[in-house]
């Protein structure tokens, strides 16, 4: 039996999350540590960073250490009518850290559902995302956005691609002043500018957001709005429903993602620990007919959550020396462990080990 007290935050999370995903029928997916380098080059826009650790294998083929898990899962699946491939994983990926600009090993856990994605599948994914966050903290926020809603709004405002990209950045930054400036620079109609500025300020509690979106009328996609309404009423049934908000600043690359995207935050951590969404466009680009939705949790970030502080390294510090009888020493250790305590056998108390109790059997006592 595993003693829960000895597990680190990320280790506890791995077991709890695998168990959670298993309850929804998601099977563990084990993949190779390496992929062909060429595979990532073909899909490099999907990767968080295009810098990849590459090396030659024994036959001279150029391989890469995995910078991403989703691509490998998609590559290995097949489209079967009426079947949804539901997998979960726990893998290390290798990416360049934005802060240190050095390669970093990142422990990532996630789930993917590949097939014809229905509203229930989106709901199930958001439910699992919320439960995943709840496993680590009661104080979390899961924010949901709909890229279809955003793109319909942008299509109504301006056809210029560069303007759209800049607008998306300012929406992601919740930056109304620069949004207003580029609208003026691009001669956007005053009414449309005000619609955009109104949209950037819509976020928070779901029912309030939906009411405000209704006031935007024909500028936003009716289909996307109806999806959000149905989804919201499904989420109302959850116990943690109040922690799931709408926030359209959660944007992801529209070349790959479409529809619902989401991000999860835990109080005490400075950045989002969970990201996910529907990525039918990626499957389409890879020649697949299915749709897909999934999310990943960055377990390395959980390191920053406060651990239950251990005041002691061991219960008993047992001191012995060369004259101590080995049978007596072994009996002492056995007795301490059988009483449910932890023990460290040392020759002297150097101060490096914090203990509750000191037992000194040096000199053969």
């Amino acid at each position, binding site marked *: 039996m595993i003693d829960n007290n000895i597990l680190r935050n990320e280790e506890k999370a791995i077991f709890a999350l695998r168990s959670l995903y298993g309850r929804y029928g998601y099977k563990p997916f084990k993949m190779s540590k390496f992929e062909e380098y060429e595979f990532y080059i073909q899909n490099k826009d999907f990767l968080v960073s295009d810098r990849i650790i590459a090396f030659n294998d024994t036959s001279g083929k150029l391989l890469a250490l995995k910078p991403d898990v989703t691509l490998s899962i998609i590559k290995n699946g097949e489209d079967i009518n009426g079947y949804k491939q539901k997998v979960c994983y726990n893998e290390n990926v290798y990416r360049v850290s934005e802060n240190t600009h050095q390669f970093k090993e990142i422990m990532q856990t996630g789930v993917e559902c590949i097939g014809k994605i229905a509203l229930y599948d989106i709901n199930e994914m958001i439910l699992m995302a919320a439960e995943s966050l709840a496993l680590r903290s009661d*104080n979390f*926020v899961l*924010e949901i956005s709909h890229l279809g809603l955003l793109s319909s709004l942008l299509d109504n405002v301006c056809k210029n691609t560069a303007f759209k990209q800049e607008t998306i950045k300012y929406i992601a*930054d*919740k*930056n109304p*002043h*620069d949004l207003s*400036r580029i609208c003026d620079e691009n001669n956007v109609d005053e009414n449309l500018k005000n619609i955009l500025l109104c949209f950037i300020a819509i976020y*928070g509690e779901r029912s309030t957001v939906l009411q405000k979106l209704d006031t935007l009328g024909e500028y936003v996609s009716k289909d996307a709005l109806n999806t959000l309404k149905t989804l919201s009423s499904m989420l109302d049934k959850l116990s943690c429903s109040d922690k799931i908000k709408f926030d359209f*600043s959660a944007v992801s690359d529209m070349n790959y993602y479409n529809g619902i995207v989401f991000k999860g*935050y*835990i*109080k005490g*951590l*400075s*950045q*989002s620990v969970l990201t996910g969404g529907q990525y039918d466009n990626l499957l389409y680009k890879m020649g697949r007919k299915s749709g897909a939705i999934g999310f990943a949790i960055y377990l390395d970030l959980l390191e920053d959550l406060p651990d239950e502080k251990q005041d002691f390294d061991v219960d008993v510090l047992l001191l012995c020396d060369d004259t101590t009888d080995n049978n007596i020493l072994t009996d002492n250790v056995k007795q301490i462990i059988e009483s449910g305590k932890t023990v460290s056998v040392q020759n002297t108390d150097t101060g490096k080990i914090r203990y509750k109790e000191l037992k000194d059997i040096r000199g053969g006592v």
Partner: protein
Amino acid sequence: MLNVALPKGRLGEKVYAMFESAGYECPSIKENNRKLIFENEKKQVRYFWVKPSDVAIYVERGAADIGVAGKDILLEYNPDVYELLDLNLGKCRMAVAAPNDFNDDGQKTLKVATKFTNIAADYYASIGREIDIIKLNGSIEIAPILKLSDVIVDIVETGTTLKENNLEVKSTIVPISARLIANKSSFKFKGEDIERIVDSMKNQVKCND
């Protein structure tokens, strides 16, 4: 407790006055001493003075929930933060400047001296101009005089320094001013407090216009 990173110097003092007017005063900050952290337990606010170029890092990493940073720093380092309000303080512009008689005919690689390498690279990429960037940390104005570069990309406030060195603005890249920024995660959990400050500051900015 709301943690606020303020930029050291005159701008920071003006910004603190805005926080004070928003109801988040901390009288100890006005004491004449070398302390860098000041707290008002009653108002649940803690201020700290940091180097202006470091404010965005404190906010992005969550050591500060909100802070005030120049748009030049935000453009150069692109931190993952919310940029909630233009405070209309410290107004200037990021510009390309060159000797008065310089004319870029586009026939050679343009040598650009700057402290803001990312801003310069993005600007020239957007207009498709081939450049060679020379990173400098100060006294940028002397680079074209000594033929180290053809042009400079730098912050221009009044243009006096340029004029005194026989330089002039050739084009403006982007207007610059101080911005109120927030850590994305803090905004999820301390959103009400942050929005209250933003609303109050927005009114103060309007009144100052």
